[in-house]
């Protein structure tokens, strides 16, 4: 039973009959007690998509309110709660778990050639922590809402009458969900690689997820302790962050950003992870300079810890630390740039096809370039003094978080959807939806760069009338995005029932998830795969035959 690399794993005929992971068991219990990483990944997927829906609705309401300079549809308090909800849900419930816990959970062990993650029960526990966190946040919403912004700055958060304690506990629990996911992935990548899967034969997706997991373990506990201190501060008047009692509110910001800046890389690194896969598969080329892309992921993870002070340039930190953090901030540009350059070089002399996942990858490169370059403005001390806490910052991080991570996530979802559910979606509809999302995104957020440069502060319910035109354009853009996402929801849900049956390897990928069935069997592979070549070895003599055989086109 020697298994060579480019034999599809389902060759043994007697095994053809074993059911895929979706059909191997039925009933609600087979889901809520499952230890299968694929099922947990799918439970995560639906949960975070639901959060995305709620966060998105909040975003639309915020944009709608900003249509006019005065009250449009809600009061100032409702508006403050709405943008807090949008930020809180999107960051803590959606983006941070999005790629690692849903898509990552699904494909990571398969890409490694493993049967599961190292600690399946911990994996399930992490999902239930996520649910508990979501429930606590829901409690916070039902018991008076929360209006601190997702950043919980003291002393506002210790004084406001809203449910900061519930929200704090919710995010605390979500933090542990994230830590457990990271812990699981690190162990899995170290210990469960299939025979022959050396570090430099791993798909770049895994390098980025590994770097992400490092941050999850090393930064998230600080968020946990920060929120715990905030809860204690509110409940018992601890005073560490309260100037009235001799504490320092700026110290809270240090604590918060020690987590939340690396958290930016928890969000963007998995996005880069997916883009590497997409660019390789749809250009049929190994990623240019594989090693430097792999190392740049780790470099970003480490450098991400050294720059948190750039959120506090005008917050009252010392001039020395301001300059220090500014200098370090610029270093982050280098590994980010290296990645972009390498993706471009991968396209060079490729064989590029334009299925919808690839469109999202190209959009990522387009948008992340803007997001990255505008980061240079913000890292520059003298300019940041002007731009800090304006719409420029809002636009910048939406270009990185939404244009980066969410575009990559959606691209990844299109890429692995056939693998997860065994069905294809309507490609034409996908391309149209993409056009809506891409155009709408730029309309919504590019205007905000202009707003911010002209001095429009963020988190404003009312605004001076000179900003209205740009706000209207931005709001219209948000409706275009929403149209795109509604279309996407329709064709995805339709495909579950009516979609064409997916071949094992619809895109002609070479990484291990394309070597198994769509959807995979419970144990992922009939036989443990053995790896004898790099992740994207399209020039391997057997690669062409493999693609032909698995793509279902002959």
């Amino acid at each position, binding site marked *: 039973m020697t298994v060579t690399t480019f034999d599809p794993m389902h060759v043994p005929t007697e095994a053809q009959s074993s059911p895929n992971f979706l059909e191997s068991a039925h009933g609600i219990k087979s889901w809520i007690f499952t230890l299968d990483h694929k099922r947990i990944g799918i439970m995560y997927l639906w949960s975070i998509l639901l959060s995305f829906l709620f966060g998105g609705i909040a975003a639309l309401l915020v944009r709608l309110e900003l249509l006019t300079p005065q009250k449009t549809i809600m009061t100032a308090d409702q508006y403050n709660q709405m943008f807090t909800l949008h930020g809180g849900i999107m960051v803590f419930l959606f983006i941070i778990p999005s790629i690692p816990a849903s898509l990552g959970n699904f494909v990571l062990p398969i890409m490694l050639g493993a049967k599961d993650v190292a600690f399946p029960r911990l994996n399930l526990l992490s999902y239930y922590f996520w649910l508990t966190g979501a429930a606590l946040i829901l409690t916070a919403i039902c018991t008076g809402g929360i209006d601190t912004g997702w950043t919980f700055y003291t002393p506002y958060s210790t004084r406001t009458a809203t449910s900061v304690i519930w929200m704090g506990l919710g995010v605390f629990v979500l933090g542990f969900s994230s830590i457990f996911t990271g812990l699981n992935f690190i162990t899995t990548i170290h210990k469960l690689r299939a025979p022959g899967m050396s570090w430099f034969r791993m798909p770049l997706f895994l390098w980025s997820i590994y770097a992400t997991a490092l941050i999850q373990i090393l930064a998230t506990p600080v968020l946990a302790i920060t929120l715990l201190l905030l809860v204690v501060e509110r409940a018992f008047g601890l005073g560490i962050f309260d100037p009235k009692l001799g504490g320092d509110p700026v110290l809270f910001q240090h604590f918060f950003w020690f987590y939340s800046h690396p958290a930016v890389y928890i969000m963007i690194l998995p996005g880069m992870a997916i883009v590497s896969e997409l660019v390789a598969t749809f250009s049929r080329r190994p990623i240019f300079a594989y090693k430097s892309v792999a190392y740049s992921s780790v470099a970003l993870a480490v450098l991400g810890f050294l720059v948190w002070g750039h959120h506090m340039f005008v917050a009252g930190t010392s001039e020395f630390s301001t300059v220090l953090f500014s200098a370090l901030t610029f270093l982050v540009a280098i590994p980010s740039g290296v990645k972009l350059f390498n993706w471009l*070089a991968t396209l060079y002399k490729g064989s590029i096809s334009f299925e919808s996942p690839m469109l999202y990858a190209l959009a990522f490169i387009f948008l992340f370039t803007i997001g990255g370059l505008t980061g240079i403005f913000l890292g*520059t001390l003298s300019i940041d003094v002007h731009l800090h806490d304006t719409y420029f910052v809002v636009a910048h991080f939406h270009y990185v978080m939404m244009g980066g991570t969410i575009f990559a996530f959606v691209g990844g979802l299109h890429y692995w959807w056939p693998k997860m559910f065994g069905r294809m979606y309507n490609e034409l509809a996908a391309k149209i939806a993409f056009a809506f999302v891409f155009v709408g995104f730029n309309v919504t957020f590019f205007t905000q760069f202009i707003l911010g440069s002209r001095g429009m502060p963020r988190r404003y319910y009312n605004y*001076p009338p000179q900003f209205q035109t740009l706000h209207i354009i931005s709001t219209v853009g948000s409706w275009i995005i929403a149209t795109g996402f509604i279309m996407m929801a329709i064709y995805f849900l339709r495909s579950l029932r009516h979609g064409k049956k997916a071949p094992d390897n619809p895109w002609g990928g070479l990484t291990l998830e394309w070597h198994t069935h769509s959807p995979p069997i419970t144990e992922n592979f009939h036989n443990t795969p053995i790896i004898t070549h790099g992740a994207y070895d399209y020039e391997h003599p057997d690669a062409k035959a493999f693609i032909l055989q698995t793509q279902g086109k002959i």
Partner: protein
Amino acid sequence: MNSEATFFMPPAISTYAGDVDQAYYWIYYLSVFLFVAMVGAMFYFVIKYRRKNSLEIPSGPQHSTVLELTWTILPFFLVMAIFLLGFKGYLKMAIAPSNATEIHVTGRQWSWLFTYGNGVESTDQVLHVPKDHPIKMIMTSEDVIHSFYVPAFRIKHDLIPGQYSSLWFEAKEVGKFDLFCAEYCGTSHSNMLGKIEVMEPKAFETWLEHEHEEQNKAVAPEVLGQRLYTKFACVTCHTTDGSPRVGPSFKGAYGRTEKFTDGTSGVVNDNYIRESILQPQAKIVAGFQPVMPTFQGQLKDSDITALIAFIKSVK
């Protein structure tokens, strides 16, 4: 240097605003160049190397040490140059000239209080400053973090409760400019607006002396009350024209019977107003949120009496 507004930036009024704009546009053109180069390359590649045959397997370079080193090392020098550019501009902002005139700023939910050297306090959310003279703001907050932001001056700094922070500027042109609170501070954050009025030095002197005399004059309680009403920006939440904002309007409020959120009701009289100023959460008029901050310790007894007289007078 040109002080007109450009497409991206508001008018540049302070002495260092020109430097900021110069750095901004320098990076802007660099970014446009890099963006066009990279996205242009992307479009060129995806069109030129689009898949022509579903069976083709391309072959091309898989790495190039020279290229990789170039695009690692070159950006390093580039970003360090930009860092120095920003650092230079920042130094100018961080170190106030020694001849700067100090003005104290106190931020509170949701108003600004400016205190000049001779004890004059602003009463109308407008900061008056002389042209062509450095001003140093010594800032603190009474409740939560606020941020003093003047887009036309390209200056911003947080006001931190319990600590002092400072910034300085020198205005080059006469005029009225927007002052925003840039750090989220609660319900009326977006109404915590002020103005900066840059005046000719002579006119400023006259104004300051005039204010000094005015503020030391004994006045009728309702006049003092009106002054306090603008000074503490009560208007942010309470109008005098009958339209409700965050809180009930003062128009005809005195003597009216109000329903409270706890189900009880009562007459708006001296005691109720006093209680509402000192313990705002005690009795909330139905239909409003308990968001008013306390003014305990900020208002003297005589101030409260004056405010009551003022509210009485708003009919």
